[in-house]
């Protein structure tokens, strides 16, 4: 690795900023839905995604894999928010008029999963990330992710498809 010089730093800063905005434009909505699925709250999703990208901007080119970093940050922030909200007695998931009933059922079903299963499900099924990427974001192995996914899928099926 070559030492960073200010020349490269400033010039990459410009490019990095544009790249981060591009990343948001391409992946931000998907990330928002995934965090919505994970947290069951539009507010949590919006806050986590906005904060994750804002932090990404601050870090600039020091982040080697911005997308993975943003995902991790968004999950971390959402998990923190979620914890706070549950401590305060907020319902999980949070009902919202802005989410259609079918989606709300899905979110409610996801909410019954474990934290790891929720993360894996939203990354793989909602954000369409390959299992290897899911493992990278969650910092685990593909095998573990596959186990989480299959168990989660079984439980979601049971819950949603039995209801008709």
């Amino acid at each position, binding site marked *: 690795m070559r030492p*960073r*010089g200010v020349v490269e730093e400033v010039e990459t800063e410009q490019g990095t900023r544009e790249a981060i905005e591009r990343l948001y434009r391409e992946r931000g909505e998907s990330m928002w839905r995934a965090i919505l699925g994970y947290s069951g709250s539009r507010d949590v999703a919006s806050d986590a995604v906005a904060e994750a990208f804002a932090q990404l901007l601050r870090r600039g080119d020091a982040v080697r894999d911005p997308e993975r970093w943003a995902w991790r*940050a968004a999950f971390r922030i959402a998990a923190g928010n979620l914890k706070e909200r549950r401590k305060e007695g907020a319902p999980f998931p949070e009902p919202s008029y802005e989410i259609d009933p079918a989606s709300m059922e899905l979110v409610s079903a996801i909410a019954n999963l474990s934290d790891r299963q929720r993360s894996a499900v939203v990354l793989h099924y909602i954000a369409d990330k390959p299992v290897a990427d899911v493992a990278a974001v969650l910092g685990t192995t593909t095998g573990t992710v596959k186990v989480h996914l299959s168990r989660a899928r079984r439980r979601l099926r049971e819950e949603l498809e039995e209801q008709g």
Partner: protein
Amino acid sequence: MKLDGRIEDFKRAPAPDLWPEIERREPLVELTTAPAGWRRLVVVAAALAIGVAGVTLAVHAFSGTRAAVQSTAPEPTNGVIAYAPIGKQAEFLTINPDGSGERSVPVPVPGFVGVPSWSPDGSRIVFAVNSFDAQSSEGGNWDIYVANADGTDPVRLTTDRVDHSPTWSPDGTKIAYVYGYGGDQQIRVMNADGSGVQELTSDHGFHSSPAWSPGGSQIAYVAFDGTNSNIYVMNSDGSDSHQVTDDPAHEDAPAWSPDGQLIAFTSEGGSRDPGVYTMSPDGSGVAEWAHDPDPANLSIAWSPDGTEMALVSIRGAGNDRNVYVLDVASHDVAAIGRPGAYYGVSWQPLTGLASYTDPSGWTIDYPSDWSVTPIAQTSDGLGSGTSISNTDQPDAPDAVGLTITHAIATTPDKTMSSTALPLSIDNFGTSPGGSNQSSLDFRLGGIRYLATLKAGSVANPADIAAVRRMIASIRPVGIAPVNPGQFAPLGQPCIASGDRTSLDTAAAGTGYQLLVPHDSMADAASSDSLIGVWRCPGDGVEMAFASGITLTQEANTFSDPGKAWQRLADEDSADTSVGTVQGQPAALIDPAKSIGGALGSVTVVIDGTIVWVVGTGHVAIADLVRVADSLQPA
């Protein structure tokens, strides 16, 4: 409904556009701009606006056994931390080491300001500017500029395509920097005015991050061999270059400690934990100082006093890129700025302060562009004194506003750092009637000071540009005003016991000053503001003034039989409108001791202690100076 169908529906749910919110949260911009008038100031400083009409010497000077007036050059102290906000045009940022006072310093240059470096006296700053010249295929043209500490008057020093990362030599005469781009970057050095460029490294390759040793004889730098970067040290003429780190980790950002004992650097990769490290300049004794699981340490600057380091780093719970301060003793790291895309950090040294030690034990430090000159013989014949003058531009219009920078006042039990600045100037006045005493009366923190000014010949008092102002003395004269015009005299008893009766010997003593409000002196027509009883809380001594007071050398007597100072007589009416004379007045007028004929001097004996009253013309009492308590009987 099938799970997959629900998921597909969910993936079409509308999502909000969060980008405006993301940009709002990226906190880079809301810096307070420098207040008007800041242009003239060097960091935390105040312009003492002096409108001098006529100024003459009025040194409170004593000879003999008096505590010596000392002039010293103290160790450098810590000023502000400067850093570069990447992507922001034409500005750098400064912040106090405690995180307060964050401000944007505008610099009129055509581009982004890169890594800054303070001059050794803290008065100037050098940095590279990326003009992003459209003509350059490399995407930008980097040139080195030097500007005043407040960002004014930037001067371009280099014109080659890519010159950057400048750093000032400890003696202020040279600037080392990096020339080149991409894989071929060399360390160069030039005179501080941009002349005499020499290349110190010459082998093809990537050299960066020059850092002077405190003595200026060596330069540490980083060399990248294609796979790994290491720290090297060479003599400042480029000779004897040798590698001092040899580790698979990537070392960068060397910074020499002020005492020369350590080089701090960043390290990532290899076998080491990422973090901030130190080592001896020969590469031995590598020690980790600031570990962080996932840091990116970009820049290191030692505090001038060596007790702290400033870092631009990404660390901490928030994983924020920010300016951090590392405490050398504890290795604790604390964020002091607001997160942002910063690069480069330099800690302003405040050095070269002239130090004036008052006979009462106070010390005031002054900026390096002033000089402290012992006065061999004051015009009053009383002995030697001290003048502190702005030697930089004594006669230029700019000198009209004497600028006191980084004043530090020290008492035996209290130090006021420059953070107590700016000074507030309560009054500047000249005494009327041609008595030609001028003084600055200002407060620093809770302390009130009187600066007595001296000037050479002033043909036209209105021509202030021609006045060579000199500060003859600056003395703390009181603390914590009890009410307007009344200051407690530095916590000392007003009067100590003594038995001197002779002014001649008294003049050799040390003393303190009790100041009659200077603003009353400015009002020549009326000294009504002096009316009243002036009390010295230390031991209950009071001094009283009646209306219509005109202090002359003949007409005033003071007595203090009950340790209550009372003005006893008025020149004209001989009234005793305040208080009652008790006991035997023991005042002594000594015209010979008047200063330059302009000041009336009155000595008063109270309980055997001589008190010297300095009056100015017909206006008022300027000072009550206790002078005799340390003397032996004659």
